[in-house]
């Protein structure tokens, strides 16, 4: 899967706590991305098998609001996301040059 910067931001939010399921507005607030960006990314991540989605297991009447859909990284998604983000980090932060620095006399 091609890793774009917005996708990397979404994955970073998921990886900040892999046990926590996230809902759309939460992901928006944490990543700083708009709703029009978040949902296509979530769909792509699901298609790739990195993320699963599940409706809240609760009664809407008891909650006093409609049930929401939560998203969670799959074990494979955690591994893949960590690897991809590490690769991205490597590309965007190249190792410091080993050339000698000439200091002024």
């Amino acid at each position, binding site marked *: 899967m091609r890793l774009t910067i917005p996708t990397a931001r979404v994955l970073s939010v998921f990886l900040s706590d892999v046990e926590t399921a996230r809902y759309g507005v939460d992901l928006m607030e944490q990543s700083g991305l*708009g*709703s*029009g*960006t*978040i949902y296509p990314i979530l*769909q*792509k991540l699901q*298609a790739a098998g990195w993320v699963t989605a599940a409706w809240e297991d609760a009664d809407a009447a008891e909650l006093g*609001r409609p049930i929401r859909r939560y998203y969670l990284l799959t074990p494979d998604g955690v591994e893949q996301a960590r690897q991809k983000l590490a690769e991205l980090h490597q590309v965007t932060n190249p190792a410091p040059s080993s050339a000698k620095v000439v200091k002024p006399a």
Partner: protein
Amino acid sequence: MRQAVARLFVDAASRRWPADSGMRQEWLAEVDYLAAQHKPGRMLWFAFGLTFARPGSAPVVGFNWRTAGTALFMLLGPFAVFAASALVFNGLANVLEILDYGVQQAGLAAFAVLAGAAGWWWGRWSVVSGPFPLALGLGVSVTASMLFMWLTGGRDLVAGYAVWVPGLLVTLLLVARLAQRRRNVFVLAIGIALFLVILDVAYIAEFYHAVGDPPPSWHAAGDGFTGAHAPMWFVFALTNQSFGVMSYYESFVISEDAFPHGIVLMGVFAMAYVIRAAGRNATMAKPA
């Protein structure tokens, strides 16, 4: 009021996603949550932003070959299918001098399969996937092709247009919506069957005015048009078989005045294209 506006945005945005993806329900839940949090600005911004959300696998419309191919095959595909079949039939007729009736029927069946395959193939690559634009685009294309053939001297339905044009549009819209939920081949069979019924009604509309009129004096004696035979008029025009029901005069007039094979081929192409394009959108990843 602001929540109603947000809901309108959500409704508009959710139409671009598969009907059973649950996106509308999910987004409305978020709108309700933000409204309950007394964040009307964020709620509106959230809902407005969704109008830009395209399904993840949706192809991008732009200045590219795929968009050009979509425009070409939506607008000219039906006519191209008909023109190709006419060229082959004319070529065969020139070679064989008289086309055996069985050859005609086999040729029509073969071209119907080819028309369906062509529509299916191009529908797969269509950048348009919404039921309404698909139905409108293909419906207008088929209608324009039939009008062109009529204006250039082809034999065609005239009164029947009032029946089959809206019928085709509604059928295309219906099958596109069904394709978002059901198996495509089943929907294709339903769509073609429905379109054939619509064409049958169009033939009734076309020729019913002649019911009760006696055959002209130059014609051999016999019955004229009979209302009870009306459902068979289209069947005869398509298959050249009246199954012993129609009078000789009915058969003569219908075979001279109406030629349904072109519209059937174009309808099959349009149906296959619409179903594949709309169904492709539905087969994209669906959230649980």
